[in-house]
Protein backbone atom coordinates (compact mmCIF):
# COMPACT_ATOMS: atom_id res chain seq x y z
CA UNK A 1 0.00 0.00 0.00
CA UNK A 2 1.17 3.53 -0.58
CA UNK A 3 1.41 5.68 2.54
CA UNK A 4 3.70 8.21 0.96
CA UNK A 5 1.20 11.01 0.86
CA UNK A 6 0.33 10.67 4.51
CA UNK A 7 2.57 12.28 7.10
CA UNK A 8 3.41 10.15 10.11
CA UNK A 9 2.05 11.27 13.44
CA UNK A 10 4.24 11.09 16.52
CA UNK A 11 3.23 7.56 17.46
CA UNK A 12 3.65 6.36 13.93
CA UNK A 13 7.19 7.72 13.80
CA UNK A 14 8.07 5.50 16.74
CA UNK A 15 6.34 2.64 15.05
CA UNK A 16 8.32 3.14 11.87
CA UNK A 17 11.62 3.37 13.72
CA UNK A 18 10.88 0.27 15.75
CA UNK A 19 9.77 -1.54 12.63
CA UNK A 20 13.10 -0.86 10.91
CA UNK A 21 15.06 -1.94 13.97
CA UNK A 22 13.14 -5.21 14.28
CA UNK A 23 13.53 -5.95 10.60
CA UNK A 24 17.24 -5.21 10.68
CA UNK A 25 17.70 -7.60 13.61
CA UNK A 26 15.69 -10.20 11.73
CA UNK A 27 17.82 -9.68 8.66
CA UNK A 28 21.08 -10.00 10.57
CA UNK A 29 20.04 -13.18 12.35
CA UNK A 30 19.26 -14.85 9.04
CA UNK A 31 22.32 -13.43 7.31
CA UNK A 32 24.97 -14.04 9.95
CA UNK A 33 25.19 -17.85 9.77
CA UNK A 34 25.44 -17.63 5.98
CA UNK A 35 28.28 -15.10 6.14
CA UNK A 36 30.06 -17.09 8.82
CA UNK A 37 29.99 -20.31 6.76
CA UNK A 38 31.22 -18.44 3.69
CA UNK A 39 34.06 -16.76 5.60
CA UNK A 40 35.07 -19.95 7.36
CA UNK A 41 35.34 -21.74 4.02
CA UNK A 42 38.15 -19.33 3.05
CA UNK A 43 39.92 -19.32 6.42
CA UNK A 44 42.86 -21.30 7.68
CA UNK A 45 41.85 -24.46 9.59
CA UNK A 46 43.65 -23.25 12.72
CA UNK A 47 41.76 -19.98 12.75
CA UNK A 48 38.41 -21.79 12.65
CA UNK A 49 39.30 -24.29 15.36
CA UNK A 50 40.68 -21.63 17.67
CA UNK A 51 37.66 -19.39 17.15
CA UNK A 52 39.40 -16.43 15.53
CA UNK A 53 36.98 -16.35 12.61
CA UNK A 54 33.85 -14.48 13.47
CA UNK A 55 32.97 -12.32 10.48
CA UNK A 56 35.63 -12.12 7.76
CA UNK A 57 38.05 -14.85 6.59
CA UNK A 58 41.17 -15.14 8.75
CA UNK A 59 44.37 -16.50 7.19
CA UNK A 60 42.92 -16.67 3.70
CA UNK A 61 43.36 -20.01 1.95
CA UNK A 62 41.75 -22.01 -0.83
CA UNK A 63 42.84 -25.39 0.58
CA UNK A 64 39.28 -26.34 1.46
CA UNK A 65 38.13 -25.78 -2.11
CA UNK A 66 41.16 -27.63 -3.50
CA UNK A 67 40.23 -30.58 -1.31
CA UNK A 68 36.62 -30.42 -2.49
CA UNK A 69 37.58 -30.48 -6.16
CA UNK A 70 40.04 -33.35 -5.66
CA UNK A 71 37.47 -35.51 -3.94
CA UNK A 72 36.42 -38.07 -6.52
CA UNK A 73 32.90 -38.70 -5.19
CA UNK A 74 32.05 -35.02 -5.07
CA UNK A 75 32.74 -34.64 -8.80
CA UNK A 76 30.65 -37.65 -9.77
CA UNK A 77 27.93 -36.64 -7.31
CA UNK A 78 27.77 -33.23 -8.93
CA UNK A 79 27.43 -34.74 -12.40
CA UNK A 80 24.77 -37.22 -11.27
CA UNK A 81 22.76 -34.51 -9.53
CA UNK A 82 22.93 -32.39 -12.65
CA UNK A 83 21.58 -35.31 -14.68
CA UNK A 84 18.77 -36.15 -12.23
CA UNK A 85 17.85 -32.50 -12.13
CA UNK A 86 17.66 -31.97 -15.91
CA UNK A 87 16.05 -35.28 -16.85
CA UNK A 88 13.75 -35.31 -13.83
CA UNK A 89 12.58 -31.73 -14.29
CA UNK A 90 11.84 -32.33 -17.98
CA UNK A 91 9.60 -35.28 -17.12
CA UNK A 92 7.96 -33.33 -14.27
CA UNK A 93 7.14 -30.28 -16.34
CA UNK A 94 5.76 -32.27 -19.27
CA UNK A 95 3.50 -34.37 -17.04
CA UNK A 96 2.38 -31.35 -15.04
CA UNK A 97 1.24 -29.46 -18.13
CA UNK A 98 -0.50 -32.55 -19.50
CA UNK A 99 -2.36 -32.93 -16.21
CA UNK A 100 -3.14 -29.27 -15.62
CA UNK A 101 -4.51 -28.21 -19.00
CA UNK A 102 -7.40 -30.68 -19.33
CA UNK A 103 -8.44 -30.05 -15.75
CA UNK A 104 -8.44 -26.31 -16.41
CA UNK A 105 -11.04 -26.83 -19.15
CA UNK A 106 -14.54 -26.25 -17.83
CA UNK A 107 -16.03 -28.47 -20.52
CA UNK A 108 -14.06 -31.55 -19.46
CA UNK A 109 -16.54 -34.12 -18.28
CA UNK A 110 -15.48 -35.47 -14.87
CA UNK A 111 -12.81 -32.90 -14.16
CA UNK A 112 -13.77 -32.66 -10.48
CA UNK A 113 -13.27 -36.39 -10.17
CA UNK A 114 -9.81 -36.13 -11.72
CA UNK A 115 -8.95 -33.19 -9.51
CA UNK A 116 -10.00 -35.16 -6.46
CA UNK A 117 -7.86 -38.07 -7.62
CA UNK A 118 -4.82 -35.77 -7.57
CA UNK A 119 -5.57 -33.74 -4.45
CA UNK A 120 -6.49 -36.73 -2.31
CA UNK A 121 -2.91 -37.98 -2.56
CA UNK A 122 -1.78 -34.96 -0.56
CA UNK A 123 -4.09 -35.89 2.30
CA UNK A 124 -3.59 -39.62 2.50
CA UNK A 125 -0.83 -41.98 1.50
CA UNK A 126 -0.07 -45.66 1.66
CA UNK A 127 3.13 -44.94 3.51
CA UNK A 128 6.82 -45.47 3.01
CA UNK A 129 6.96 -49.25 2.96
CA UNK A 130 4.25 -50.01 0.36
CA UNK A 131 5.90 -47.31 -1.76
CA UNK A 132 9.27 -48.98 -1.33
CA UNK A 133 7.82 -52.40 -2.17
CA UNK A 134 6.26 -50.94 -5.34
CA UNK A 135 9.52 -49.40 -6.54
CA UNK A 136 11.30 -52.66 -5.78
CA UNK A 137 8.68 -54.75 -7.61
CA UNK A 138 8.93 -52.47 -10.63
CA UNK A 139 12.61 -53.37 -10.75
CA UNK A 140 13.71 -49.78 -10.22
CA UNK A 141 15.88 -50.33 -7.15
CA UNK A 142 19.38 -49.07 -7.74
CA UNK A 143 18.57 -47.59 -11.16
CA UNK A 144 18.29 -43.98 -12.30
CA UNK A 145 14.54 -44.54 -12.82
CA UNK A 146 14.03 -44.61 -9.07
CA UNK A 147 15.28 -41.02 -9.05
CA UNK A 148 13.15 -39.85 -11.96
CA UNK A 149 9.76 -41.57 -12.06
CA UNK A 150 8.26 -41.93 -8.56
CA UNK A 151 6.78 -38.59 -7.60
CA UNK A 152 7.05 -37.31 -11.18
CA UNK A 153 3.72 -35.50 -10.82
CA UNK A 154 3.81 -32.85 -8.11
CA UNK A 155 0.20 -32.21 -7.14
CA UNK A 156 0.85 -28.71 -5.77
CA UNK A 157 2.46 -27.72 -9.08
CA UNK A 158 -0.45 -29.20 -11.02
CA UNK A 159 -2.83 -27.09 -8.95
CA UNK A 160 -0.98 -23.79 -9.49
CA UNK A 161 -0.50 -24.50 -13.21
CA UNK A 162 -4.18 -25.27 -13.57
CA UNK A 163 -5.12 -22.07 -11.75
CA UNK A 164 -2.82 -20.14 -14.09
CA UNK A 165 -4.41 -21.69 -17.19
CA UNK A 166 -7.88 -20.92 -15.87
CA UNK A 167 -7.16 -17.31 -15.06
CA UNK A 168 -4.91 -16.19 -17.88
CA UNK A 169 -6.13 -17.98 -20.99
CA UNK A 170 -9.44 -16.43 -22.05
CA UNK A 171 -12.27 -18.77 -23.06
CA UNK A 172 -12.80 -16.65 -26.17
CA UNK A 173 -9.43 -17.74 -27.48
CA UNK A 174 -10.42 -21.39 -27.30
CA UNK A 175 -13.75 -20.67 -28.96
CA UNK A 176 -12.09 -18.78 -31.79
CA UNK A 177 -9.54 -21.55 -32.28
CA UNK A 178 -12.23 -24.22 -32.26
CA UNK A 179 -14.25 -22.33 -34.88
CA UNK A 180 -11.15 -22.50 -37.07
CA UNK A 181 -11.04 -26.25 -36.52
CA UNK A 182 -8.08 -26.25 -34.15
CA UNK A 183 -7.64 -29.49 -32.20
CA UNK A 184 -6.92 -29.54 -28.46
CA UNK A 185 -3.35 -30.71 -29.00
CA UNK A 186 -2.63 -27.93 -31.47
CA UNK A 187 -4.27 -25.40 -29.17
CA UNK A 188 -2.00 -26.42 -26.29
CA UNK A 189 1.10 -26.35 -28.45
CA UNK A 190 0.45 -23.14 -30.36
CA UNK A 191 -1.54 -21.02 -27.91
CA UNK A 192 -1.37 -22.29 -24.33
CA UNK A 193 2.36 -22.98 -24.06
CA UNK A 194 3.57 -19.66 -25.50
CA UNK A 195 1.17 -17.80 -23.19
CA UNK A 196 2.24 -19.74 -20.11
CA UNK A 197 5.97 -19.17 -19.94
CA UNK A 198 5.81 -17.45 -16.51
CA UNK A 199 4.15 -20.43 -14.84
CA UNK A 200 6.37 -22.89 -16.70
CA UNK A 201 9.39 -20.99 -15.35
CA UNK A 202 7.97 -21.23 -11.85
CA UNK A 203 7.27 -24.96 -11.85
CA UNK A 204 10.57 -25.68 -13.58
CA UNK A 205 12.29 -23.92 -10.70
CA UNK A 206 10.27 -25.66 -8.02
CA UNK A 207 11.00 -29.06 -9.53
CA UNK A 208 14.66 -28.32 -10.26
CA UNK A 209 15.34 -27.19 -6.69
CA UNK A 210 13.50 -30.27 -5.45
CA UNK A 211 15.69 -32.59 -7.51
CA UNK A 212 18.93 -30.84 -6.60
CA UNK A 213 18.17 -31.05 -2.88
CA UNK A 214 16.60 -34.50 -2.95
CA UNK A 215 18.35 -37.02 -0.76
CA UNK A 216 15.87 -39.45 0.78
CA UNK A 217 14.90 -41.39 -2.36
CA UNK A 218 18.57 -41.80 -3.26
CA UNK A 219 19.18 -42.86 0.31
CA UNK A 220 16.65 -45.69 0.24
CA UNK A 221 16.69 -46.67 -3.45
CA UNK A 222 20.32 -46.43 -4.58
CA UNK A 223 23.16 -48.73 -3.55
CA UNK A 224 25.90 -48.12 -6.14
CA UNK A 225 28.32 -45.30 -5.50
CA UNK A 226 28.44 -44.36 -9.18
CA UNK A 227 24.72 -43.44 -9.06
CA UNK A 228 24.95 -41.30 -5.93
CA UNK A 229 23.72 -37.73 -6.24
CA UNK A 230 25.61 -34.95 -4.51
CA UNK A 231 23.33 -34.97 -1.45
CA UNK A 232 24.29 -38.53 -0.54
CA UNK A 233 27.97 -37.67 -0.82
CA UNK A 234 27.30 -34.62 1.34
CA UNK A 235 25.64 -36.83 3.91
CA UNK A 236 28.69 -39.10 4.10
CA UNK A 237 31.01 -36.16 4.61
CA UNK A 238 28.97 -33.64 6.60
CA UNK A 239 26.86 -35.96 8.72
CA UNK A 240 28.71 -39.27 8.90
CA UNK A 241 32.07 -37.51 9.02
CA UNK A 242 33.33 -40.04 6.50
CA UNK A 243 36.21 -38.36 4.71
CA UNK A 244 38.75 -40.16 2.63
CA UNK A 245 42.04 -38.72 3.87
CA UNK A 246 44.17 -40.31 1.16
CA UNK A 247 42.44 -38.12 -1.35
CA UNK A 248 43.21 -35.05 0.69
CA UNK A 249 46.91 -35.82 0.96
CA UNK A 250 47.30 -35.13 -2.75
CA UNK A 251 46.20 -31.56 -2.12
CA UNK A 252 48.09 -30.47 0.94
CA UNK A 253 50.52 -32.02 3.31
CA UNK A 254 48.46 -33.67 6.04
CA UNK A 255 50.97 -35.46 8.21
CA UNK A 256 49.80 -34.72 11.72
CA UNK A 257 46.44 -35.80 13.06
CA UNK A 258 45.63 -32.26 14.10
CA UNK A 259 46.28 -31.00 10.60
CA UNK A 260 44.06 -33.67 9.12
CA UNK A 261 41.25 -32.83 11.43
CA UNK A 262 41.61 -29.14 10.71
CA UNK A 263 41.55 -29.69 6.98
CA UNK A 264 38.56 -32.04 7.09
CA UNK A 265 36.72 -29.39 9.08
CA UNK A 266 37.64 -26.74 6.51
CA UNK A 267 36.60 -29.09 3.72
CA UNK A 268 33.10 -29.25 5.22
CA UNK A 269 32.67 -25.49 5.14
CA UNK A 270 33.90 -25.31 1.54
CA UNK A 271 31.65 -28.19 0.58
CA UNK A 272 28.59 -26.48 2.08
CA UNK A 273 29.39 -23.44 -0.05
CA UNK A 274 30.01 -25.44 -3.23
CA UNK A 275 26.78 -27.43 -2.83
CA UNK A 276 24.65 -24.35 -2.20
CA UNK A 277 26.20 -21.73 -4.45
CA UNK A 278 24.64 -22.92 -7.74
CA UNK A 279 21.14 -22.30 -6.35
CA UNK A 280 22.14 -19.07 -4.61
CA UNK A 281 23.52 -17.65 -7.85
CA UNK A 282 20.43 -18.49 -9.89
CA UNK A 283 17.91 -17.55 -7.25
CA UNK A 284 18.02 -13.72 -7.23
CA UNK A 285 17.23 -13.77 -10.94
CA UNK A 286 14.27 -16.06 -10.56
CA UNK A 287 13.04 -14.85 -7.19
CA UNK A 288 10.21 -12.82 -8.69
CA UNK A 289 8.92 -15.89 -10.50
CA UNK A 290 8.96 -17.88 -7.28
CA UNK A 291 7.00 -15.18 -5.54
CA UNK A 292 4.54 -15.19 -8.40
CA UNK A 293 4.19 -18.96 -8.16
CA UNK A 294 3.33 -18.87 -4.50
CA UNK A 295 0.87 -16.05 -5.12
CA UNK A 296 -0.93 -17.97 -7.85
CA UNK A 297 -1.05 -20.95 -5.52
CA UNK A 298 -2.55 -18.85 -2.77
CA UNK A 299 -5.36 -17.69 -5.03
CA UNK A 300 -6.95 -21.07 -4.71
CA UNK A 301 -5.14 -23.66 -2.65
Amino acid at each position, binding site marked *: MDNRSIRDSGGDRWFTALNYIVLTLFLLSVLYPLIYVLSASFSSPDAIVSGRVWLWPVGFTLDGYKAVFHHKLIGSGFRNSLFYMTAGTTINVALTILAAYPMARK*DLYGRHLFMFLFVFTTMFSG*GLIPFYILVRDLGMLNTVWAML*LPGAVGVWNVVITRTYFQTSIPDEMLEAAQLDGCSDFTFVRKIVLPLSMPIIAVITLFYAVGHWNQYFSAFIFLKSQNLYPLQIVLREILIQNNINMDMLSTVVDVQSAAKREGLSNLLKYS*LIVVATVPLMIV*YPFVQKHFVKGVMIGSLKG
Partner: protein
Amino acid sequence: MPGEPTTETFRSGGTGRTRWQKIRKGRQLYLMLALPVLFVIVFNYVPMYGAQIAFKNYVVTKGIWGSEWVGFKHFHRFVNSYEYWRLIRNTLSISLYSLIAGFPFPILLALSLNYVRSLAFKKSVQMITYAPYFISVVVMVGIVFELLDPRKGIVNHVIQALGFEPVPFMAKAGLFQSIYVWSGVWQMVGFSCIIYLAALASIDPALHESAVIDGASKLRRMWHVDLPGIMPIAVILLIINMGHMLDVGYEKILLMQNSLNLRTSEVIDTYVYKVALNSPAMNYSYSTLIGLFKSVINLALLVLVNQVARKTRQASLW
Protein backbone atom coordinates in the same frame (compact mmCIF):
# COMPACT_ATOMS: atom_id res chain seq x y z
CA MET B 1 -18.02 -25.12 -10.62
CA PRO B 2 -21.48 -26.34 -11.49
CA GLY B 3 -24.00 -23.82 -12.66
CA GLU B 4 -21.68 -21.25 -14.12
CA PRO B 5 -21.95 -20.65 -17.85
CA THR B 6 -19.26 -22.49 -19.74
CA THR B 7 -18.02 -22.52 -23.30
CA GLU B 8 -19.87 -25.81 -23.46
CA THR B 9 -23.34 -24.37 -22.97
CA PHE B 10 -22.42 -21.47 -25.18
CA ARG B 11 -21.69 -23.62 -28.17
CA SER B 12 -24.30 -26.26 -27.75
CA GLY B 13 -26.90 -23.63 -27.04
CA GLY B 14 -27.79 -25.44 -23.85
CA THR B 15 -29.51 -28.29 -25.63
CA GLY B 16 -29.15 -31.65 -23.93
CA ARG B 17 -26.08 -33.59 -24.89
CA THR B 18 -25.59 -37.11 -23.81
CA ARG B 19 -22.77 -37.98 -21.49
CA TRP B 20 -21.17 -40.06 -24.20
CA GLN B 21 -21.07 -37.14 -26.60
CA LYS B 22 -19.37 -34.98 -24.00
CA ILE B 23 -16.76 -37.63 -23.38
CA ARG B 24 -16.15 -38.12 -27.11
CA LYS B 25 -15.81 -34.39 -27.56
CA GLY B 26 -13.02 -34.27 -25.00
CA ARG B 27 -11.14 -37.34 -26.15
CA GLN B 28 -7.94 -35.42 -26.85
CA LEU B 29 -8.11 -33.96 -23.35
CA TYR B 30 -8.48 -37.41 -21.84
CA LEU B 31 -5.53 -38.53 -23.91
CA MET B 32 -3.43 -35.75 -22.39
CA LEU B 33 -4.57 -36.70 -18.90
CA ALA B 34 -3.86 -40.39 -19.42
CA LEU B 35 -0.15 -40.34 -18.69
CA PRO B 36 -0.21 -38.17 -15.54
CA VAL B 37 -3.21 -40.08 -14.20
CA LEU B 38 -1.37 -43.35 -14.83
CA PHE B 39 1.61 -42.01 -12.86
CA VAL B 40 -0.56 -40.95 -9.94
CA ILE B 41 -2.39 -44.27 -9.90
CA VAL B 42 0.82 -46.27 -10.01
CA PHE B 43 2.90 -44.26 -7.57
CA ASN B 44 0.19 -43.02 -5.18
CA TYR B 45 -2.77 -45.36 -5.34
CA VAL B 46 -1.00 -48.69 -5.78
CA PRO B 47 0.86 -48.09 -2.48
CA MET B 48 -2.53 -47.44 -0.85
CA TYR B 49 -3.60 -50.86 -2.09
CA GLY B 50 -0.29 -52.25 -0.83
CA ALA B 51 -0.99 -50.81 2.62
CA GLN B 52 -3.21 -53.85 3.23
CA ILE B 53 -0.07 -55.71 4.31
CA ALA B 54 -0.51 -53.81 7.60
CA PHE B 55 -3.12 -56.49 8.34
CA LYS B 56 -1.16 -59.37 6.87
CA ASN B 57 2.07 -61.17 7.49
CA TYR B 58 3.96 -59.93 4.48
CA VAL B 59 6.33 -62.47 3.00
CA VAL B 60 8.33 -61.34 -0.02
CA THR B 61 7.95 -64.61 -1.91
CA LYS B 62 4.16 -64.64 -1.50
CA GLY B 63 3.68 -61.01 -2.47
CA ILE B 64 1.12 -58.50 -1.23
CA TRP B 65 -1.94 -60.46 -2.33
CA GLY B 66 -0.70 -63.93 -1.38
CA SER B 67 0.44 -63.16 2.14
CA GLU B 68 -1.66 -64.34 5.04
CA TRP B 69 -4.24 -62.12 6.80
CA VAL B 70 -3.56 -61.61 10.49
CA GLY B 71 -6.13 -58.92 11.30
CA PHE B 72 -5.18 -56.38 13.94
CA LYS B 73 -2.20 -58.30 15.27
CA HIS B 74 0.36 -55.65 14.31
CA PHE B 75 -1.89 -52.90 15.61
CA HIS B 76 -2.13 -54.54 19.04
CA ARG B 77 1.58 -55.13 19.05
CA PHE B 78 2.22 -51.46 18.27
CA VAL B 79 -0.12 -49.85 20.80
CA ASN B 80 1.14 -52.19 23.50
CA SER B 81 4.77 -51.79 22.63
CA TYR B 82 7.34 -50.07 24.78
CA GLU B 83 8.02 -47.60 21.93
CA TYR B 84 4.42 -46.50 21.42
CA TRP B 85 4.07 -43.68 23.95
CA ARG B 86 7.56 -42.40 23.35
CA LEU B 87 6.92 -42.15 19.59
CA ILE B 88 3.57 -40.43 20.04
CA ARG B 89 4.96 -38.04 22.64
CA ASN B 90 8.02 -37.08 20.58
CA THR B 91 6.08 -36.74 17.34
CA LEU B 92 3.39 -34.57 18.87
CA SER B 93 5.78 -32.45 20.85
CA ILE B 94 8.06 -31.75 17.86
CA SER B 95 5.04 -31.06 15.70
CA LEU B 96 3.33 -28.69 18.13
CA TYR B 97 6.61 -26.99 18.96
CA SER B 98 7.23 -26.39 15.23
CA LEU B 99 3.73 -25.08 14.77
CA ILE B 100 3.85 -22.69 17.72
CA ALA B 101 7.35 -21.44 16.95
CA GLY B 102 6.93 -21.44 13.20
CA PHE B 103 3.54 -19.80 12.86
CA PRO B 104 3.94 -16.25 14.23
CA PHE B 105 7.31 -15.31 12.69
CA PRO B 106 6.32 -15.30 9.01
CA ILE B 107 3.19 -13.31 9.91
CA LEU B 108 5.19 -10.77 11.91
CA LEU B 109 7.75 -10.49 9.14
CA ALA B 110 5.05 -9.92 6.54
CA LEU B 111 3.24 -7.31 8.68
CA SER B 112 6.50 -5.43 9.29
CA LEU B 113 7.59 -5.58 5.67
CA ASN B 114 4.23 -4.24 4.62
CA TYR B 115 4.98 -0.95 6.41
CA VAL B 116 8.45 -0.48 4.94
CA ARG B 117 8.53 2.38 2.47
CA SER B 118 12.03 1.94 1.11
CA LEU B 119 11.63 -0.53 -1.72
CA ALA B 120 15.35 -1.36 -1.73
CA PHE B 121 15.29 -2.28 1.97
CA LYS B 122 12.13 -4.31 1.54
CA LYS B 123 13.60 -6.21 -1.40
CA SER B 124 16.87 -6.97 0.39
CA VAL B 125 15.13 -8.24 3.52
CA GLN B 126 12.97 -10.49 1.39
CA MET B 127 15.85 -11.71 -0.73
CA ILE B 128 18.03 -12.60 2.24
CA THR B 129 15.40 -14.15 4.49
CA TYR B 130 14.22 -16.20 1.52
CA ALA B 131 17.69 -17.59 0.70
CA PRO B 132 17.94 -20.33 3.37
CA TYR B 133 14.90 -22.01 1.82
CA PHE B 134 17.18 -23.18 -1.01
CA ILE B 135 19.61 -24.95 1.29
CA SER B 136 19.13 -28.71 1.14
CA VAL B 137 18.24 -30.57 4.29
CA VAL B 138 21.59 -32.37 4.31
CA VAL B 139 23.52 -29.10 4.05
CA MET B 140 21.25 -27.53 6.65
CA VAL B 141 22.01 -30.27 9.16
CA GLY B 142 25.68 -30.03 8.16
CA ILE B 143 25.68 -26.32 9.00
CA VAL B 144 23.97 -26.99 12.33
CA PHE B 145 26.57 -29.63 13.21
CA GLU B 146 29.45 -27.36 12.25
CA LEU B 147 28.24 -24.30 14.11
CA LEU B 148 27.30 -26.28 17.23
CA ASP B 149 30.40 -28.48 17.30
CA PRO B 150 31.66 -28.76 20.90
CA ARG B 151 35.25 -27.81 20.07
CA LYS B 152 35.32 -26.24 16.62
CA GLY B 153 31.95 -24.53 16.37
CA ILE B 154 31.43 -20.79 16.69
CA VAL B 155 28.58 -21.14 19.16
CA ASN B 156 30.76 -22.92 21.68
CA HIS B 157 33.58 -20.45 21.07
CA VAL B 158 31.20 -17.73 22.15
CA ILE B 159 30.00 -19.76 25.15
CA GLN B 160 33.60 -20.31 26.22
CA ALA B 161 34.50 -16.67 25.68
CA LEU B 162 31.71 -15.80 28.10
CA GLY B 163 33.32 -18.08 30.63
CA PHE B 164 31.04 -21.11 30.47
CA GLU B 165 31.75 -24.74 29.76
CA PRO B 166 31.25 -25.82 26.12
CA VAL B 167 27.94 -27.57 25.46
CA PRO B 168 27.85 -30.82 23.44
CA PHE B 169 24.62 -29.75 21.75
CA MET B 170 23.94 -32.79 19.60
CA ALA B 171 24.57 -35.16 22.48
CA LYS B 172 21.96 -33.54 24.71
CA ALA B 173 18.56 -35.16 24.35
CA GLY B 174 16.94 -32.17 26.07
CA LEU B 175 18.12 -29.78 23.36
CA PHE B 176 17.33 -31.84 20.28
CA GLN B 177 13.81 -30.58 19.69
CA SER B 178 14.78 -26.94 20.11
CA ILE B 179 17.66 -27.28 17.66
CA TYR B 180 15.38 -29.01 15.18
CA VAL B 181 12.59 -26.48 15.48
CA TRP B 182 14.61 -23.26 15.52
CA SER B 183 16.87 -24.26 12.64
CA GLY B 184 13.63 -24.94 10.77
CA VAL B 185 12.23 -21.52 11.64
CA TRP B 186 15.48 -19.93 10.46
CA GLN B 187 15.27 -21.77 7.17
CA MET B 188 11.57 -21.33 6.39
CA VAL B 189 10.57 -17.92 7.73
CA GLY B 190 11.26 -15.98 4.52
CA PHE B 191 9.52 -18.50 2.33
CA SER B 192 6.44 -18.81 4.51
CA CYS B 193 6.22 -15.02 4.64
CA ILE B 194 5.55 -14.68 0.90
CA ILE B 195 2.06 -16.07 1.07
CA TYR B 196 1.11 -13.56 3.78
CA LEU B 197 2.61 -10.71 1.80
CA ALA B 198 0.43 -11.78 -1.12
CA ALA B 199 -2.62 -11.73 1.14
CA LEU B 200 -1.69 -8.29 2.49
CA ALA B 201 -1.25 -6.95 -1.03
CA SER B 202 -4.78 -8.01 -1.87
CA ILE B 203 -6.40 -6.04 0.98
CA ASP B 204 -8.59 -3.28 -0.39
CA PRO B 205 -6.64 0.03 -0.02
CA ALA B 206 -9.94 1.79 0.69
CA LEU B 207 -10.00 0.06 4.08
CA HIS B 208 -6.66 1.62 4.97
CA GLU B 209 -7.70 5.01 3.64
CA SER B 210 -10.84 5.13 5.71
CA ALA B 211 -8.91 3.92 8.76
CA VAL B 212 -6.44 6.77 8.26
CA ILE B 213 -9.26 9.29 7.92
CA ASP B 214 -10.68 7.98 11.17
CA GLY B 215 -7.31 8.71 12.74
CA ALA B 216 -6.09 5.15 13.20
CA SER B 217 -2.39 4.77 13.93
CA LYS B 218 -0.30 2.26 11.99
CA LEU B 219 -0.40 -0.14 14.90
CA ARG B 220 -4.19 0.04 14.97
CA ARG B 221 -4.40 -0.45 11.21
CA MET B 222 -2.17 -3.49 11.53
CA TRP B 223 -4.47 -4.88 14.18
CA HIS B 224 -7.85 -3.96 12.69
CA VAL B 225 -7.20 -4.09 8.95
CA ASP B 226 -4.13 -6.21 8.16
CA LEU B 227 -4.60 -9.01 10.64
CA PRO B 228 -8.24 -9.73 9.70
CA GLY B 229 -7.11 -9.56 6.06
CA ILE B 230 -4.65 -12.41 6.44
CA MET B 231 -6.75 -14.50 8.80
CA PRO B 232 -8.38 -16.66 6.11
CA ILE B 233 -5.05 -17.69 4.63
CA ALA B 234 -3.61 -18.29 8.10
CA VAL B 235 -6.54 -20.57 8.92
CA ILE B 236 -6.13 -22.47 5.64
CA LEU B 237 -2.42 -22.99 6.36
CA LEU B 238 -3.26 -24.10 9.88
CA ILE B 239 -5.72 -26.67 8.54
CA ILE B 240 -3.17 -27.98 6.06
CA ASN B 241 -0.57 -28.15 8.83
CA MET B 242 -2.95 -30.12 11.01
CA GLY B 243 -3.31 -32.59 8.15
CA HIS B 244 0.39 -33.23 8.43
CA MET B 245 0.54 -33.13 12.19
CA LEU B 246 2.29 -36.47 12.49
CA ASP B 247 4.55 -36.05 9.46
CA VAL B 248 7.60 -34.62 11.08
CA GLY B 249 9.70 -35.93 8.26
CA TYR B 250 12.11 -38.74 7.62
CA GLU B 251 14.77 -36.50 6.31
CA LYS B 252 15.92 -33.92 8.81
CA ILE B 253 15.31 -35.89 12.00
CA LEU B 254 16.93 -38.99 10.60
CA LEU B 255 20.01 -36.94 9.77
CA MET B 256 20.17 -35.24 13.17
CA GLN B 257 19.61 -38.38 15.19
CA ASN B 258 22.30 -40.15 17.18
CA SER B 259 22.24 -42.70 19.96
CA LEU B 260 22.58 -39.98 22.60
CA ASN B 261 19.52 -37.94 21.61
CA LEU B 262 17.29 -40.85 20.58
CA ARG B 263 15.16 -40.43 23.69
CA THR B 264 13.66 -37.20 22.34
CA SER B 265 14.35 -37.61 18.62
CA GLU B 266 12.72 -40.92 17.77
CA VAL B 267 9.44 -40.16 15.96
CA ILE B 268 6.91 -42.24 14.02
CA ASP B 269 8.56 -41.58 10.65
CA THR B 270 12.07 -42.47 11.72
CA TYR B 271 10.79 -45.58 13.47
CA VAL B 272 8.88 -46.69 10.35
CA TYR B 273 12.09 -46.38 8.36
CA LYS B 274 14.19 -48.26 10.90
CA VAL B 275 11.84 -51.14 11.54
CA ALA B 276 11.64 -52.08 7.87
CA LEU B 277 14.59 -50.74 5.96
CA ASN B 278 17.33 -50.48 8.53
CA SER B 279 17.03 -53.68 10.52
CA PRO B 280 17.89 -57.27 9.70
CA ALA B 281 14.35 -58.36 10.64
CA MET B 282 12.84 -56.33 7.74
CA ASN B 283 9.48 -56.23 9.41
CA TYR B 284 7.51 -54.74 6.50
CA SER B 285 4.02 -55.45 7.78
CA TYR B 286 4.62 -53.98 11.21
CA SER B 287 6.24 -50.90 9.73
CA THR B 288 3.40 -50.45 7.23
CA LEU B 289 0.88 -50.64 10.06
CA ILE B 290 2.66 -47.83 11.91
CA GLY B 291 2.76 -45.74 8.74
CA LEU B 292 -0.92 -46.37 8.08
CA PHE B 293 -1.80 -45.53 11.67
CA LYS B 294 -0.12 -42.17 11.09
CA SER B 295 -1.85 -41.52 7.75
CA VAL B 296 -5.27 -42.28 9.19
CA ILE B 297 -4.78 -39.96 12.17
CA ASN B 298 -3.50 -37.23 9.86
CA LEU B 299 -6.55 -37.49 7.63
CA ALA B 300 -8.89 -37.54 10.62
CA LEU B 301 -7.26 -34.42 12.07
CA LEU B 302 -7.50 -32.65 8.73
CA VAL B 303 -11.21 -33.39 8.40
CA LEU B 304 -11.87 -32.49 12.02
CA VAL B 305 -10.05 -29.16 11.97
CA ASN B 306 -11.59 -28.26 8.65
CA GLN B 307 -15.01 -29.02 10.08
CA VAL B 308 -14.38 -26.81 13.10
CA ALA B 309 -13.11 -23.99 10.89
CA ARG B 310 -16.17 -24.26 8.70
CA LYS B 311 -18.57 -24.30 11.64
CA THR B 312 -16.96 -21.20 13.11
CA ARG B 313 -17.25 -19.56 9.69
CA GLN B 314 -13.54 -19.21 9.18
CA ALA B 315 -12.02 -20.36 5.93
CA SER B 316 -12.20 -24.01 4.98
CA LEU B 317 -10.54 -26.30 2.50
CA TRP B 318 -13.75 -27.64 0.99
